[in-house]
């Protein structure tokens, strides 16, 4: 029998961990001489207080849904894909190349452009995950280390391309020229205007958010409704049992990582195609790592991931507001601190909350059992 009810595992533990993380973050704010409650209020208002706030929050959430799903898919097969960062980075190239080099008659409308870019992003993202996956499956090299190395190699490759071959000669910064106007993804403002909703014009929220939600549904279907998903979960539960059941380990490892990489790559649709409309350096901004936290908090389930991604999106957006409201006294890196504490408490220190709770539920249950005898 389980040590505690399922709702406690899915709802109670994350909430307690989250509170602990916020208390710790509040202590940091207090330590630098600011009022943590005021800071929290500023962040909440910044994230949800206006359509612009919502627009940014959900824009960041889109990134985190993609990277969170990427981590979760790998988690189900007990693979730890820490390389979402690099995969998304290289996927930016997969978006930029068709946009820069396809003749204009092949990009007549944003829907067609989206097909090319999605193909490019998923292909490049999956491609960057393929080598670590192959090395893990065939040569037994630890996927965590290889994906870390591939993050760093991706940085070098993108730096090289954006300072050379792909560089826009008219600017100083390392970036490509702007994508064709026909490839412009509809923004939330444009999509909601026909319904009479006046959504903020400046917010970067765009069509990619809908893709992210669709991806969440697809991942749910893949993991719990297909043979492949079943094999992945079986492999994750017990590799040896899966082998005896005739599930091919090499194939599962490879396919799982390819799906994971492709999902991480979809981030580039949101940022490179949807927001920047050109390829810039450092556009991933740690979203690959935040995906780990999102997946942890969401218990690797798409619904949990979407909710956790919105939370993290709100944190990122709220963090920007801190900077303005506190007149530079709290820097926006406070967001990193909060994210770190959430990763720490929900991920690494999970048992800090779990052990006492399990003990408590067992004690609560003990008298009930005695009666039933």
């Amino acid at each position, binding site marked *: 029998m389980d040590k505690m009810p399922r709702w406690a595992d899915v709802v109670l533990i994350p909430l307690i961990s989250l509170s602990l993380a916020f208390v710790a973050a509040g202590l940091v704010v207090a330590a630098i001489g600011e009022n943590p409650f005021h800071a929290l209020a500023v962040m909440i208002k910044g994230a949800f207080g206006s359509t612009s706030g919502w627009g940014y929050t959900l824009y960041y959430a889109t990134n985190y849904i993609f990277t969170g799903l990427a981590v979760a898919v790998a988690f189900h097969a007990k693979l730890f894909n820490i390389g979402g960062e690099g995969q998304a980075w290289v996927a930016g190239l997969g978006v930029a190349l068709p946009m820069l080099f396809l003749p204009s008659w092949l990009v007549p409308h944003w829907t067609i452009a989206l097909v090319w870019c999605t193909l490019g992003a998923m292909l490049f993202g999956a491609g960057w995950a393929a080598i670590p996956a192959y090395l893990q499956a065939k040569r037994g*090299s630890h996927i965590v280390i290889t994906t870390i190395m591939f993050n760093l190699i991706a940085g070098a490759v993108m730096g090289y391309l954006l300072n050379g071959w792909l560089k826009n000669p008219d600017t100083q910064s390392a970036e490509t020229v702007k994508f064709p106007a026909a490839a412009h993804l509809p923004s939330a403002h444009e999509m909601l205007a026909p319904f009479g909703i006046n959504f903020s014009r400046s917010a970067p929220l765009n069509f990619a958010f809908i893709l992210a939600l669709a991806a969440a549904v697809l991942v749910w279907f893949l993991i719990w409704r297909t043979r492949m998903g079943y094999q992945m979960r079986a492999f994750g539960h017990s590799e040896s049992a899966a082998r005896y059941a005739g599930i091919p380990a090499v194939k599962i490892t490879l396919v799982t990582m390819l799906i994971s990489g492709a999902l991480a790559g979809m981030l580039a649709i949101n940022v490179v195609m949807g927001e920047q409309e050109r390829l810039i350096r450092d556009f991933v901004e740690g979203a690959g790592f935040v995906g780990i936290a999102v997946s942890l908090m969401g218990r690797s389930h798409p619904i949990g991931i979407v909710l956790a991604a919105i939370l993290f999106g709100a944190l990122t957006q709220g963090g920007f507001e801190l900077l303005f409201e506190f007149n530079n006294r709290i820097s926006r890196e406070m967001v*990193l601190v909060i*994210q770190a504490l959430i*990763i720490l408490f929900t*991920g690494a220190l999970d*048992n800090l909350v779990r*052990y006492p709770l399990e003990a408590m539920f067992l004690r609560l249950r003990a008298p009930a059992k005695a009666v039933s005898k």
Partner: protein
Amino acid sequence: MDFLHVFSQLIATFDSTIRLATVLLIACLAGLYSERSGIFDIGLEGKMLISAFVSAAAAYETGSAWVGLLFGCGASIIFSLIHGLASITFRGNQLISGVAINFLASGLTVVIGNAWYGKGGQTPTLEGAARFGEITLPFANALRDVPLIGPIYSDLISGHKPLVYIGFLLVPLTWWLLFRTRFGLRLRAVGENPESVDTAGISVVRMRYTAVLICGLLCGIAGSYLSTSQGANFGREMTAGRGYIALAALIFAKWRPWYAMYACLLFGLLEAISNLYPNIDLGLFVIPVQFTQALPYILTVVILAGFVGKAIPPRAGGEPYVKER
């Protein structure tokens, strides 16, 4: 290009290599203690970063580089204790704990640095005794003019910061501790087969905490070196991936101290080359600076893949130890 010119360029390159390799070496040895005891540590980067910041701040406030070092090590040890708490006591995922520590250090250094000094996370420039000075070895000045040996001794071997010598002395010390003492045998054993150590009546938890503490101390020294020896203040993200290169070097060295030194010297050389000669023109084609910078990572992947000698990590690495009940 005459011989003397090439020679002096070589000396300059190797001199820079030693400076750059030191921080990698100390961090790499830090990781070695931790991973040999079965605790994966991808948080080397974060621990170095927090130490670099705290060292610079403490050195600035007290005017002493040594006090800075002390505080830096303290901060790094606190971080390593968090890692120990998560991965030993609460049997959490060691990789996730490492990611959290890296994030925490990136965030805290800038938030606190900005609150204290208001310069976007930078600390004020260190002067005088707040920075480590160079050590001139005996006879270095007298021998300077002797051909060949003079420059090698006076420029290459002499004239470094104290932490450079400490770093390189740590290599034989670590080797001796690991392979010639009872402590070392036990440390290696908890990383390979904790059950056997437990059966012998030795506390796995205590051994692992000791290793994690040593790791914290060494990361502290490495971070302090960055901001008070190599540099003259702390800048945001100052470690710039060195923790990961150290991790790469550790794998490259197959978790052995002497090889760790060779690996760090090699990676230090690559960094020195990319600093001194950004784009190397080979006539037929140009080696871009990014390639030289990424080479440590590429080499590590090749080594990990087992195409050139197999790197096998400590067997119990990453697994929390659960005593049988």
